[in-house]
């Protein structure tokens, strides 16, 4: 490929790249893999940060929400006149259920005065149009997959005992303030207050969401504003049930997502470093092959700097080519992974693109990294002594540090030779070994993490010895509910629980976070939570509480041993934190009796049901029967509801688990992909190292041939050396995967479980990895071995 304008030396550079195109392609690929690994994480991070920061602020999330008995126009007028508030909106949240092919699924209906009003917690419409008709429903984007009906179809929604009412799915909207629907396994949907009325749930609203006029207020200041509002509501005759003030301006999961991305960035950078090590190996190999030519160039007057510039240029050109491949690939992967990650926060990253600076960084790293990797060998190569190079070409260096190996007894000669050879070029071999070992460690680490996630999920869900939870409104007497459920065929056991929401009251009487409470019999047979600190509820009569680690972290007042003041309904009471439980689910557990004593016993509003059968179809039937039983004439089941008809929703524990687990496992999957990429880099490193070893030992192989070694024996020497490295890397990967697992388990566990995920070594994975590295080694050494067998005794000895 003549390029007329180039000077001879750059023409040599270009032609060498072309002539050794297989090697060029390998180096370019290796660097590209590293850049893809790091670049895709960088792109993901940039997109997610951007989307979350901007998307969340742009939605104008509510500064706080106050729940009252009923929002009246007069009350709204009072609040809208409050100078501290920027805007005020009324809404209501109603638990409902929708009929699907496989039974009922829980639905959370969000009604708003005006769904199109974007001043507080703006909904972004992704399909359909505002306004929403009274016989229509808009599904939240993150629960679209769960919803039994798509856009244009009818969703049969029922509230309580009411008959299912068809609502036309008129659109899809995204509410970035909600945790994703798949995470909670609930279909979120938006309706008008009139639609609630059609469902028989009444058309009134009971939530007041507000945004403070000053957007920069701290949480405590907002809480004081909220306390003022509570007083104002009380003086105008309203009754406040709940107050919730979240951390302002920050998405609830932003911190967690950042730490997840930082962990992944660590792996991206690791991949980059490994690919740089491979580039280093290959540049060394290249220079080793160029020793004679370098000497000749210097003999005809090339200065060391000129020689160095040529080979750094080679590295730079390969780096730029690698960037050209890697940048589109990492952008595509980054976009896809950002979409997934943003989806975990219920953000939409589909229209986001990779920022220019991410591309610039990748290009710079791509060009500079190989040059950095090449710097030391190029420096050494450019300073080669001309006379020595011309004299010694083709002869191997003196063996280093192999004395102890020669003393090994009882090993066959080709094997001994292999092992000894493997340690000859210690730096190069060490890098190859490290690359393969790191790939193995990441792979095993990801595998261990997967197992850790499963066992953490097990720990969470094993504590739940029930299959189905029921939400029942209004409350029913505990005994009759339990009796009614016990009579349903297919139910092995059932407990009536109660649920309430309490608001933490601060020292100066300010209202703090709101806390979901689940009242269970202290001697429950369906919950077996072992708190990570403290203990489980002991006394049914005393006001003890076991909180989740998630709640304890969000609210410092919920520390073990603390006594907190809770306002439940109208009543204020003191509760003592006796235990903190780890797990993915966040609810505080209290004694059913103690809760009833505070709330005046409105009856059981929750129930846990344990199915007799494990079979999915049988469980579905039982679930239908449970619903049928509770919606039948109450007297038929010996049930006396306190008020009116029952509204029953149910959700399967297994569904909840599956939807959470699947998403968590995907993160581990991303890491195993990194492990595979590192394996590819490691394989390439091994191939290049072995090719170089064969080149360096041409003479030695010639000697072997001269003393009668056959093809098989030569193959055995080369393949044996590769295997020695591969097996050593495997052995090294096992201990390396331990700290990897601890780091991963910590980061990951704290994000999703609020407690480290315990990592257990997966021995089956260790065995699989051994097989993988052996195969990789055999493949990587195949070509070097063939090359070695082509060395004839004559040509080898004719050197010099």
């Amino acid at each position, binding site marked *: 490929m003549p390029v007329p304008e180039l*000077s*001879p*030396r750059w*023409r*040599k550079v270009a*032609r*060498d790249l072309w*002539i050794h195109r297989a090697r060029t392609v390998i180096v370019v690929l290796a660097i590209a893999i590293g850049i893809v690994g790091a670049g895709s994480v960088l792109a993901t991070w940039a997109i997610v940060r951007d989307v979350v920061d901007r998307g969340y602020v742009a939605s104008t999330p509510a500064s706080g929400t106050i729940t009252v008995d009923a929002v009246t126009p007069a009350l709204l007028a009072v609040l809208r006149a409050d100078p501290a508030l920027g805007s005020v909106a009324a809404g209501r949240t109603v638990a409902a259920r929708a009929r699907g092919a496989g039974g009922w699924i829980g639905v959370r209906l969000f009604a708003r005065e005006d769904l199109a009003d974007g001043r507080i917690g703006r909904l972004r419409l992704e399909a359909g149009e505002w306004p929403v008709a009274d016989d229509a429903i808009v599904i939240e984007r993150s629960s679209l997959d769960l919803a039994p009906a798509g856009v244009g179809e009818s969703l049969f929604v029922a509230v309580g005992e009411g008959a299912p009412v068809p609502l036309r799915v008129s659109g899809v909207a995204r509410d970035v303030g909600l945790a994703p629907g798949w995470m909670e396994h609930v279909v979120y949907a938006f309706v008008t207050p009139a639609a609630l009325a059609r469902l028989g749930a009444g058309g009134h609203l009971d939530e007041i969401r507000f945004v403070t006029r000053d957007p920069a207020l701290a949480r405590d200041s907002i809480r004081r504003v909220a306390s003022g509002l509570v007083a104002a509501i009380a003086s105008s005759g309203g009754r406040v049930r709940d107050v919730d003030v979240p951390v302002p301006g920050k998405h609830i999961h932003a911190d967690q997502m950042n730490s997840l991305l930082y962990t992944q960035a660590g792996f991206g950078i690791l991949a980059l470093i490994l690919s740089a090590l491979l580039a280093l190996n290959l540049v060394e190999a290249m220079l080793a092959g160029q020793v*004679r*030519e370098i000497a*000749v*160039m*210097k*003999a*005809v*007057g*090339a*200065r*060391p700097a*000129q020689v160095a510039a040529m080979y750094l240029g080679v590295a730079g050109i390969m780096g730029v080519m690698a960037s050209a491949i890697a940048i589109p690939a990492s952008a595509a992967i980054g976009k896809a992974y950002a979409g997934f990650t943003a989806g975990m926060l219920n953000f939409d990253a589909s229209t986001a693109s990779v920022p220019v600076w991410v591309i610039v960084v990748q290009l710079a790293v791509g060009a500079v990294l190989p040059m950095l990797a090449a710097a030391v060998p190029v420096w050494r190569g450019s*300073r080669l*002594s*001309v*006379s020595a190079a*011309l004299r010694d070409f083709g002869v191997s260096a003196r063996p280093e540090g192999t004395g102890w190996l020669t003393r090994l007894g009882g090993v066959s000669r080709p094997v001994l030779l292999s092992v000894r050879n493997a340690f000859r070029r210690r730096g190069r071999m060490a890098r190859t070994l490290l690359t393969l070992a790191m790939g193995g460690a990441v792979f095993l680490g990801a595998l261990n993490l997967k197992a850790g996630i499963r066992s953490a999920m097990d720990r969470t869900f094993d504590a739940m010895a029930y299959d189905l939870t029921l939400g029942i409104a209004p409350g029913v007497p505990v005994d009759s509910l339990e009796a009614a459920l016990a009579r349903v065929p297919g139910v092995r056991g059932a407990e009536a629980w109660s649920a309430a929401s309490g608001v933490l009251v601060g020292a100066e009487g300010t209202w703090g976070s709101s806390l979901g409470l689940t009242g269970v019999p202290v001697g429950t047979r369906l919950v077996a939570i072992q708190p990570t600190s403290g203990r489980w509820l002991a006394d049914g009569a005393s006001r003890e509480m076991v909180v989740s680690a998630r709640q304890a972290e969000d609210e410092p007042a919920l520390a073990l041993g603390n006594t907190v003041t809770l306002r439940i309904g109208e009543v204020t009471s003191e509760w003592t934190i006796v235990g903190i439980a780890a797990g993915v689910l966040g609810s505080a557990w209290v004694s059913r009796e103690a809760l009833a004593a505070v709330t005046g016993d409105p009856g059981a509003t929750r129930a846990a049901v344990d199915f007799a059968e494990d079979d999915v179809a049988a469980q579905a039937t039982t679930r239908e029967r449970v619903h049928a039983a509770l919606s039948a004439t109450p007297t038929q089941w010996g049930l006396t509801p306190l008020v009116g008809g029952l509204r029953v929703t149910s959700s399967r524990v297994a569904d909840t688990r599956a939807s959470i687990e699947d998403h968590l496992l995907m993160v581990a999957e991303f890491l195993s992909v990194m492990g595979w990429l590192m394996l590819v880099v490691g394989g390439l490193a091994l191939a290049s190292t072995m090719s170089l070893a064969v080149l360096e030992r041409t003479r030695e192989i010639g000697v072997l041939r001269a003393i009668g070694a056959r093809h098989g024996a030569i193959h055995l020497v080369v393949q044996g050396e590769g295997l020695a490295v591969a097996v050593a890397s495997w052995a090294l990967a096992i201990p390396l995967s331990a700290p990897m697992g601890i780091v991963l388990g910590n980061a990951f566990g704290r994000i999703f479980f609020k407690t480290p995920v315990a990592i257990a070594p997966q021995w089956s994975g260790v065995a699989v990895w051994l097989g993988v590295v052996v195969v990789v080694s055999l493949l990587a050494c195949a070509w070097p071995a063939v090359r070695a067998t082509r060395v004839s005794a004559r040509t080898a000895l004719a050197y010099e």
Partner: protein
Amino acid sequence: MPLISLDHVARTFDTPAGPFTALRDVSLDIERGEFVTVIGQSGSGKSTLLGLLAGIDHPTSGTVHVAGTAVHTLSERAMSAWRGTAVGIVFQFFQLLPTLTALENVMLPMDFCGTFAARERRQRARQLLERVGVADQAHKLPHTLSGGQQQRVAIARALANEPPVLLADEPTGNLDSRTSAEVLALFDGLVREGQTLVMATHAPAARAYASRVVSLADGVVIGDEVHARA
């Protein structure tokens, strides 16, 4: 001052078996226009001597002056720059860069040393190839050329920067006798045009062309005779 002057030069190598002296107390003056052959058995120190003249090696003691430069005082870096213009080297194994054409190989020293205007280099390389008789091979890669042709290209390359001194280490060592004679005749012609040439060889035939024969044995000069040239 002679073009080349060695004064009490010694070169000792460190070997695993202890220090080994390859050149011992060599003093030698060579004038402009001389055709010197250095003869001696293999291992007698011929290549070591040429290496000192070429600035690819430093003497352990003594001084080396070539074309007015005290070569023994130059740093490694200064040596490469100096070497490019002061000496042209011809090797036994030709040592052409395999991925460059004959023409490009000849252009290379000019490229590295920045001699001649960039536009003139191609023209000059072509003239040199004509001078050594392989102009028709200008655009071929070295491995497609015969040994004799490769050595001619290598000689053209050695002449590229018009060095005052041409050094050749066993230039005919890898050639058959007929081709060897042709290469020696080429050298002879160059010397007749005024080129100074120092050639190491153990081929007796080479003596015929030389104006002076320096004999080495075990690193010591054991003979230095001036010949009448044919």
